[in-house]
């Protein structure tokens, strides 16, 4: 069974937003919804400055607090690790929104708190989802964490990584390259 994960090399991101709009088109999102976003952090004082950019999207946590608080199991984790939302079961209580430490949830036009869905239609055939394939700087690399031969596993073996907010115990499946 595949277990999908994502490696983000934020050091290469130049904040072009192609990932965001490619995702929006692929998933037909309205302009008010964004499954991935960037956080910009200015560091230093002139002229010794550095910009840091952190691309953020649903971490597909191994222990997803959003699923834990969901009273109807509308948010659920699949065997391959994807955390998805069944809109039909969603009763709109929005417990999942504050439960997510990554602020990944976005209320869509149907009032369902949606989020990045790791675009399984691409992952299952070994391709990169639109946010990744369009990125000119190759910031994102999706793959199968279980498969030692996947590009992702190989790359993970060569870089040191960190994860966001580990103290929450969510065990996110997004790894960030440490610089």
């Amino acid at each position, binding site marked *: 069974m595949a277990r999908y994960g994502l490696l983000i090399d934020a*050091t*290469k*991101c*130049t*904040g*072009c*937003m*192609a990932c*965001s*709009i*490619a995702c*929006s*088109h*692929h998933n*037909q*999102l*309205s*302009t*008010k919804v*964004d499954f991935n*976003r*960037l956080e*910009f952090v*200015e560091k*230093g*004082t*002139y*002229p010794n*400055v550095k*910009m840091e*950019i952190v691309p953020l999207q649903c971490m597909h946590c191994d222990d997803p607090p959003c699923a834990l608080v969901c009273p109807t199991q509308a948010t659920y984790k699949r065997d391959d690790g994807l955390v998805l939302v*069944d*809109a*039909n079961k969603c009763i709109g209580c929005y417990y999942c929104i504050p439960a997510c430490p990554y602020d990944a949830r976005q209320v*869509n*036009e*149907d009032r*369902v708190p*949606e989020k990045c869905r790791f675009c399984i239609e691409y992952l299952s055939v070994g391709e990169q989802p*639109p946010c990744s*394939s*369009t*990125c*000119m*700087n*190759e910031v994102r690399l999706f793959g199968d964490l279980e498969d030692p031969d996947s590009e992702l596993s190989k790359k993970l073996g060569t870089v040191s990584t960190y994860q966001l907010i580990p103290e929450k115990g969510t065990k996110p499946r997004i790894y960030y390259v440490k610089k």
Partner: protein
Amino acid sequence: MTKMRRRTFLKASAATAVLSAVPLYFNFNDYQKVASEAPINKIPTTCNGCASMCGLFAHIKNDRLWKIEGHPIHLKSRGRLCARGHGMASDLYGKGRVTGPMKRTGEESFEPISWEQAFKEIGEKTKEIVNTHGGNSVMWLEHGVRGKYYADQFLDVIGSSNYVTHYSTCFTSKTNAWQNMVGSSLNGDHENSKYMIFEGRNFAGGIIPHGMNQITKAKEKGAKIIVIDPRYSEIAKIADEWIPIRAGTDLAFRLGLAHVLITENLYDKVFVNKYVEGFDEFWNVNKKYTPEWAAEVSGISADKIREIARELAKNAPESFIEPGWHGLHSHYINSTQTAQMGIVLNALLGNFYKRGGLMPSASIALGSMELPAQFHPEKGPRIDGAGVEGEFLTVETGRGIAQRLPDAIEAGKLKALFVYHFNPLRNAPDPEYQKKIKNAELVVSIPVDWNETSIYAADYILPESYYLERTEAPMNVSGHISHDHPQISLRQQVVKPLYDTKPLLDIMRGISNEMGYSLYDYTVEDQIKAAVEPLGITPERLKQAGTIEFPATVKPGFPESNGKPSCGTFTGKIEFSIDLFRLDGKMGIPTWIPPMVMPNPDIKEEFRLIHGKCPWHSHGVTSNNPELMAITEQYNGTAMWLNTKRANDLGIKNGDTVIVESDIAKKTVKVRVTEFIHPEAVWIPAAYGGFSKKFTTSYNVGVNYNDFIPAMVEPHSGSTMSQEVIVTVRKVAN
């Protein structure tokens, strides 16, 4: 998003029936609901989000565009696209499009007319103008290149020499220098370089996706990237060093670098002896420009200048100063000399035609149609003054001067103006002055949308079909990035036109037929056939592939013929001096020219206004796009950047609204207080300030640098000098 709702919807009504019931404007969400399970047809074509024309695949469901993705072969995209490309595609269904031919009925008001009526009236009026004032009173003004093939035939037959592009508002200082000093243009071989300097060039803002990919790849392999720019731009994010420079002094910095390379014997003498003409002339004039002098002018320390020169030399020939684009090459009175110095420095590094240095872009000769001979009346001198003795002799005639048309109208020289895919009222300096374009006897705008030029100046608007609705003649893929393999690509129709619009060829045929010429007796299919058949390719194959790559035609090595350098100049060598400039009584070699204006350091409100591209908009072209504008909103994209210390002195806080005032304009702007900009300059993004009321998304959002600058002409290349302006910045009184 709701799976259930979508299913029931589809079950209740067959998808086709639903489609016909869907109004013309429907958002992508509605579309997903009706068409999610329809088969996808992927058709290759080219992007129009900027002028790079990346290859792409349009995904079509039920005759409707769903999304686009990068073409994997096309060397500009190689499977990747930037945000503006994605956004631009959905503007096919956007709200700013012109839906059929329009005729002015009053201030900002138009009535729809038929194409027949439009052709008849425009044809008759143009003919009358040609008969009364001569063909030379007619001008064709366009963004550049795209309409040239058709425009030339028209201008030739009426006897007009006035083909003018937007280039003077963008980069003509650079092309002028390269054309005269090298005879052609080379590009950085980013992929193989070890040391790259991006000076006033934000490659991550004006994006070529595969070009950026090559840069990040080179960096992974250990290449060093230096960014020299008054602003910490997007490319600075991945640079090893950002070195802020005083805006307008890049020429001094470059002269300082040359001084180090020459005095420390770091330059490639073998290369210079063999391939350079005019080294001594250059050095005799410029010996005095030491790094200490350059430091004084530019604010970059002499030690840093020495360090950079030494590192450039150490890595040569796999090092370069990026030849650049809009960044430095239309902004200052010394932009041409700055561009010249880019060539001089690269030549001193001996990096021409070397891997990792500067290399050409391969191209292949396309076939062309035999057109019937036509009578060509004699043409007069250009009315924009480009290349005209006593006016702007040294300006490239192929590009022209776009920004001073109202003068030519007032002088009675320009009577009929055709504007194709260019919007001088928004994208040339001083909109109030540009509005006078309407005083020409006839102004015809051929756009896709209700841009400012159409609304405020055009007598007729003839909408061209959107780029996804039309097929164009095939083109070589080239520009800005080096590559060995020539490629050709085709823009082709992927959906049926939504409105009563036409491709340019049909528009030109319509007008010229009414004038009694039969110029365009061919179809775009004929053009495609003629272009590709000599290459052994069928039109069908090109249509299917979208982009075709050919075996390499480029190898490293300075061009030589019979053992002599032959790079396309008179001497065949890189000429450090531009002969033409001397004819005009100017200096042929680059030497120090101070910027025209400088902010007074004693006045705490004074700044130089600078500008640049943001990565998700292409100047005004994309700004009415709701998706791209949503990004702008989310990330505070319209704010003016102001240095923290200077802001403190003025009592301005982040997010405040301030008054920015130049000699010609006074506007209010929101500020971003930041450490990321030189204290002497304020920066605004180039994309905003739309004032067409028909642009529901971009109207009145942000300001534009063109609002603040008078329509000036840089004396050497005709550029707009768009950063030679001082503004005062004041807090809005509470």
